[in-house]
């Protein structure tokens, strides 16, 4: 099977064919909310209210917003740490996210894990572990179960350029190819794995490897939220039609350091400036402003939502130290992942899925 290395996703026309104006505004709002929440969390970090370090996805908002928006309620997601918008699309509220960053009892993990190491199991999401890209295999296993049960749904997972060097990348790609599984692999190529640039990571663009595993690989402008949506929508359609996995390389740029402590001096300033001109939020804002959308009004409403969420999260209690040993083992019946929100208009007619986990 040939790999489509070139720009395989057509421009705005193909994307907008599946997106209403309301959808396009939703995508902008999700990105604004992600950026605003992460900026707020950085402020809270500097105030000493976020323990540990803080990791964000500034400049990469389109990757998770566009991809998650293409997923149905019964699809399952394994989300990476620079993909906050995926959680927002699935229905996690901003106050719980800020509480999560601050290690509060009301955060998604109740203080048991930090940062974006979370997934709301009731919304069909599994949180990442720091060993990357372990979740590629978990997503592959979900897809294996869906295929076995003849269900019309898929799994999606995100991972970075550094992840392509580890064995689990190969094991997941190979397994998914051999069994022709309904899984979407989103390679978030943000140019650096911590400080390591691409030319020290791989000799061949990893999207080319998809063909070697027997499935399609496509490269997408990861700073175009509508292009991301379209690539993932098409990949999901292939998955549900029994055509197997897709590797989507989303080309983007990590605009901040690896984490709050990293001043990113290993990145040439000109490179950052060049990428700043391709900001995904500016891009979607311009598109919508040209159509007469009140983008400033949207920004205002997002800011108000974040302010309210901040207030709520700051008022939330810290976890009880007496509970530190609780929950190592499950003592009830195992409850599988639940369904998440799927706001894309395309799901309204057909529901987009056939229900939750068995």
């Amino acid at each position: 099977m040939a790999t489509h290395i070139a720009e395989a996703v057509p421009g705005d026309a193909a994307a907008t064919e599946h997106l209403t104006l309301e959808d396009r505004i939703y995508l902008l709002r999700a990105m604004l909310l992600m950026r605003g929440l992460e900026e707020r969390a950085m402020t809270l970090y500097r105030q000493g209210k976020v323990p540990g370090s803080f990791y964000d996805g500034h400049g990469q908002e389109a990757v998770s917003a566009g991809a998650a928006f293409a997923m149905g309620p019964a699809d399952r997601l394994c989300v990476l740490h620079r993909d906050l918008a995926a959680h927002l699309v699935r229905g996690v509220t901003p106050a719980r996210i800020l509480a999560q960053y601050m290690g509060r009892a009301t955060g998604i993990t109740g203080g048991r894990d930090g940062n974006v190491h979370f997934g709301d199991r009731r919304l069909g999401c599994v949180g990442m572990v720091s060993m990357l890209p372990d979740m590629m295999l978990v997503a592959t296993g979900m897809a294996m179960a869906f295929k076995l049960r003849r269900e019309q749904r898929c799994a999606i997972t995100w991972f970075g350029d550094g992840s392509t060097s580890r064995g689990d990348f190969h094991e997941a790609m190979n397994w998914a190819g051999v069994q022709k599984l309904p899984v979407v692999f989103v390679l978030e190529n943000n140019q650096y794995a911590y400080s390591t640039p691409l030319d020290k990571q791989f000799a061949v663009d990893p999207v080319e490897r998809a063909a070697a595993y027997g499935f399609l690989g496509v490269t997408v402008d990861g700073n175009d939220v509508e292009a991301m949506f379209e690539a993932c929508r098409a990949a999901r359609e292939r998955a549900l039609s029994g055509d197997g996995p897709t590797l989507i390389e989303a080309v983007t740029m990590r605009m901040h350091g690896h984490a709050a402590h990293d001043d990113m001096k290993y990145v040439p300033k000109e490179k950052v400036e060049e990428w700043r001109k391709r900001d995904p939020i500016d891009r979607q804002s311009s598109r919508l402003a040209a159509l007469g959308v009140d983008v400033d009004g949207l920004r205002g409403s997002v800011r108000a939502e974040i302010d309210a969420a901040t207030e709520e999260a700051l008022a939330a209690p810290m976890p009880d130290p007496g509970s530190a040993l609780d929950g190592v083992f499950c003592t009830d019946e195992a409850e599988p992942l639940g369904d998440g929100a799927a706001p894309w208009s395309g799901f309204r007619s057909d529901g987009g899925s056939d229900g939750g986990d068995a």
Partner: protein
Amino acid sequence: MPTLTYLQAISAALRDELRADERVIVMGEDIGVFGGAFKVTDGFVDEFGGERVMDTPLAESAIIGTAIGAAVVGMRPVCEMQFADFISCGFDQLVNVAGKMHYRQGLAVPLVVRLPSGGGFSGGPFHSQNPESWFMHAPGIKVVAPSTAEDAKGLLHAAIHDPNPVCYMEHKHLYRRVKGEVREGVFETPFEARVARPGSDMVVIAYGAMVGVALEATSDLDGASVEVLDLRSLVPLDEEAILDSVARCSKVVIVDEANQCCAAGAHVAALIAEKGFEHLDGPVVRVATPDVPIPFSPPLEQAVLPNVERVREACLELLEY
């Protein structure tokens, strides 16, 4: 009740579960058409098909990782490591993804990993290990190790029904050597210790293949009444049963086939030192494999593995204390 070998009991448990619960799948290298390296799943593919008796790529991390994914969307995967040694390649998925999942996110991972373990047949350094204590040290993973055919079946049923990741240590040396009457149908053996033989002068604490060694070594110790406690489960560890035996017997020998440093028996010894000290009448004695890779050549292998003679000597010495 039919008489089954330890291996047949494992097969019977898997077959019963596959018949009873469509969520159960078994997956591993060469387990389908070939029936598994030890023939545990012989003939399964004919009855249940290749999707539920899955021949996987040779990729242990992927076997564990995909099983986790299947488990969190409602399946009950049972993975076979062809040899327990190979779990080192799936260690990260088991320890970091499966083991920590429920604590971090409240998401249960009902997963069983079958680990054909142990030495005694010239398997060499990579086909003879007893890696159970690696997982005792990793929170969120249960570890069980049957010594009889009955428990091989009942513990496997219980492991498959458990909502947590369970390492099921099946000892290769017992596969065809141990036989016994086994109940038919689905039943659960609790993750608790079992008194294999009651006694009052001394207790030998063991699990897996070492239970049989302990029973044989202590069957006639100059008339001493020797209890043998079969732990059956290492996580959770039946502290009550251990301390009860110690209180009644006062002298303790702990046998591990695993390398001695930080082995299950080391943890049991620490427990007794902390909570059973006042009942002791002598030092806690351990018999375990020294900290060397398991050698290939029979005289070398026999020189390191605990055996009947070594356990017997340790017991006689302690009885004289």
